[in-house]
């Protein structure tokens, strides 16, 4: 424990009888320790004097008003959450349907030449099919 810690504990009344007697003895004989103790006391006093004891007037009113605002916006937040829940499930359902259609198209075959064309259900892109589509 250094001298400053010792002085803080001395100020707190947090020393054993033996430690207390030792510090008081040193304070009598050591001007430097005395000076440190005075500085510590001075700063402690300034800190206590400078302590704020309140916020701006009507603080409690502002806290309650902020809570009310938060309360009134809660249903809107709830709606956003509900929409997010619905959209997430709709997106998954759409993906499953798309995969099912793709799998069906690929298994049925007879559309395009490539796997991608088959999955997408696209006809083979040849001059004949183009003319056939044009009537």
């Amino acid at each position, binding site marked *: 424990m250094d001298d400053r810690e010792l002085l803080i*504990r001395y100020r707190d009344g947090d020393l054993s009888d033996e430690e207390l007697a030792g510090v008081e003895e040193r304070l009598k004989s050591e001007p430097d320790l005395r000076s440190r103790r005075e500085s510590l006391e001075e700063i402690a006093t300034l*800190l206590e004097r400078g*302590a704020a004891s309140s*916020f701006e007037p009507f*603080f409690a*009113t502002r*806290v309650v008003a902020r809570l009310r605002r938060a309360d009134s916006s809660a249903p809107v937040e709830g709606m956003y959450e509900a929409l997010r829940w619905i959209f997430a499930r709709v997106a998954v359902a759409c993906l499953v349907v798309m995969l099912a259609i793709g799998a069906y198209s690929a298994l049925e075959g007879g559309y395009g030449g490539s796997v991608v064309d088959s999955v997408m259900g696209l006809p083979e892109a040849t001059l004949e099919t183009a003319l056939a589509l044009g009537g």
Partner: protein
Amino acid sequence: MRAATEPRLAEATAVVERPESASDQVLIDRARAGDEGAFRDLVERYEPRIAATVIGMLGPGDEAEDVGQETFIRLYRSLERFRGESSLGTYLTRIAINLSLTALKKRKRRISRFVSQDETERDLPEASWDPRGELERKEDVRRVREAVARLAPDHRTVVVLRMIDGYSTREAAEILGIPVGTVMSRLARAMERLEKDMKESHDG
């Protein structure tokens, strides 16, 4: 999102007997039941303590006001979970310290984004130190506050809890969740720094 168990403020609060001496627990129970007046009483009861903590950490201004409000909002949101393992004052102080430290981090990021460190240091107000001059006392209070604002956040925290809020070393350790010895050594270093700061500015 609001917790399902969170109480709602009653717009038209029923008339409830609320003696000045109602204990924290009584007020907490009433606030849980939606009694806005009981919650307001708690805010008024603990405003001085939280103001000392938050303004000690951040200095006066909008930032401290916002953190002060948020401290009580957090209390309200956690009323259902508050079991009273620590006193309400200690519980609130812990919230206030954590929010203040977060605000200090944000402030540091903001400053480093727009201002170089050299400029920050140059812009810090000068201080002087006159332990004997009573007339300078008010000015000294302002300067010691500025010196506190120059401390590292972990040192500032122990100074605020121990020297401004008046918590014991053990209580400060409990609030911060650190060993008693760490609180004491940080406090000793912080007080040394404050003393040097005040003396240097006085001599310079």
